[in-house]
């Protein structure tokens, strides 16, 4: 059996959404609470280890 190490090659998913409410779209997906993000990440088997954001977007470093 071949020796298996850690798989470096990533899988990348990009999703775009639209909505009708302009007020909602200002923050949009950024309004998702941290618990919801954690639940989504649970499906992927990742957790948040570090986070940062600015006025445009939020960026999370994940485990794995």
């Amino acid at each position: 059996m071949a020796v298996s190490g850690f798989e470096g090659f990533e899988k990348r998913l990009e999703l775009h959404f639209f909505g009708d409410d302009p007020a909602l779209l200002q923050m949009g997906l950024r309004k998702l609470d941290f618990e919801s993000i954690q639940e989504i990440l649970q499906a992927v088997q990742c957790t948040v280890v570090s986070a940062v954001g600015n006025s445009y977007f939020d960026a999370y470093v994940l485990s794995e």
Partner: protein
Amino acid sequence: SSLFVYPTKIIIKTCGTTQLLKSILPLIYYAHHHLGLTLCSCRYTRGSFIFPKSQPFPHTSFKDEVTYLEETIPSNLCYRKASIMPSKSSSHSWHVFTASDESHIPYDHENELFTMEICMTELDPILARKFFRRPGDEKTGDSAGKEMTELTGINEINPEAYICDFAFDPCGYSMNGIDGDWYSTIHVTPEDGYSYASFECVGSITDDLVHVLRKVVQIFRPATMSVSTTSCGGYSNDMWTRVVGAVEPMGLKCRSCAMDQFPAAGSVVFQTFTARRK
């Protein structure tokens, strides 16, 4: 691994044996039920796994991934395409799936943007060693990450970016850079035998692509590298020549170049390079 959340866009990039595609359903659910947002486009990309047999379903093969995507995304995303973009080596292919609804037309300014995904293997072992923690360094993942960012020169790729970095124990590194509404990200697995690093950024065709590419090559000195660029504005020809012009003087030779068009998602250029010393 990294996650980027914009008001109407989410990007998740994960390595290892993560089941990334399983995030689609909960994401669609939360976006719709909590925020009233509807999915209008989906793009899934990856290289060729080093250990494909270790991947769990639905990542067991690209065919399985595409079947899962087809069955999971809503039917309004009707413009769909799946493609494996080849290189000269059967172990280095670029896998792309896109799906869009008819409303997803890129904004004018988006036409000048590109996403660049770089995958590197067989890193220079001396440079890769910088991504190992020192035993008993008594640092946190954040502080050890910051040290690696500076020690390796990663902070010089885009000096304007604010960097959020993390060093894993005993080795490995991830960082996200934020510069206005543009992100960049790096992930490193430095272990000899299966060393790997990736760099990804979004940029404008007017950016200094040469500086970015050369800096990335300098930091990792990979024996094998692939560069995939996705753009909407019809700059594919310009992009691939600029990438070659930036990378070849750094001792890497372009071995293959493939291009493909994806409905409502733009064009993808996939180039592979190997070190001249090989």
